[in-house]
């Protein structure tokens, strides 16, 4: 079966190339390659079902596991924007905190 692997990035017009590995159902590595700059790759595979692991840089997720079971297989990533966090002393306005850590815990409420 000829299949198309298409990796896209939501809300991003930039080109991205993705490395990926294709495994059979026994976890044997069949193909280790990368997409073109448009995020596409085509190949012929004899069976109807394979597993694929796609690796990305600076995207979410940075490792996606999926199934190849049709002619066109689309995998969508999310652009990973960085935020800038500032930390200052509440009693001395503007005084920067030299070193520390801030933890953000996802609130599922």
């Amino acid at each position, binding site marked *: 079966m000829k299949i198309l692997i298409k990796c896209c990035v939501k809300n991003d017009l930039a080109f991205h190339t993705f490395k990926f590995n294709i495994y059979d159902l026994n976890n044997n590595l069949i193909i280790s390659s990368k997409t073109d700059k448009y995020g596409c790759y085509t190949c012929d595979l004899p069976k109807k079902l394979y597993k694929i692991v796609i690796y990305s840089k600076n995207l979410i997720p940075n490792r996606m596991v999926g199934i190849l079971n049709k002619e066109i297989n689309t995998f969508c990533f999310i652009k*990973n924007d960085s935020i800038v966090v500032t930390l200052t002393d509440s009693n001395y*306005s503007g*005084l920067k*905190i030299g070193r520390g*850590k801030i*933890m*953000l*815990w996802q609130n599922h409420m």
Partner: protein
Amino acid sequence: MAKPYVINIVNGSGTESILNGTYNVSANVSGYNNESISPSSVNVQAGTNNYAFQISATGTLTLHVTETGEAGGTPIVGATFVRTDASGTTYGNPITTDSEGNAVFNNVPFAATNAPLIYYKQTASDGEHEFDDNVQNTSLTTDSQTIQITNATPASRTITLTDANYANLPIDGELTLN
């Protein structure tokens, strides 16, 4: 529970790639009251990439100013100090020494180990004593600490007044320095 995003703060800021969503915030800052992090929750949303947090401390730094820099020395009343960073930029209101010569900075960080440096400088004395206006620093290992500071009496200076047209001819009179 999922792992949190950990943002390393260096010199007041840090960057991290974070998914949009609502997060509870905690802090790990040596010397500060980590429970005081504000805001305690944040909504990370598309189009907004800058988020500001504040934190406070509970230590007390007393600067005791005397003529000799000794605990029992003559106190200097009316000397002013201000918190700064390492470069000398000032933060907060100036603090003035009281009748006992004490200028008290509240809400400063302290920690038994890895206490952050606290920078400050003297901006004025009482008008009758010398003072060092360079940026100083210290760190508090306990919640309250006193530092002795010297504001010495002015050194005696020798002033000469001579005739401009007759070299070394001394002149009697008064000079006023304003």
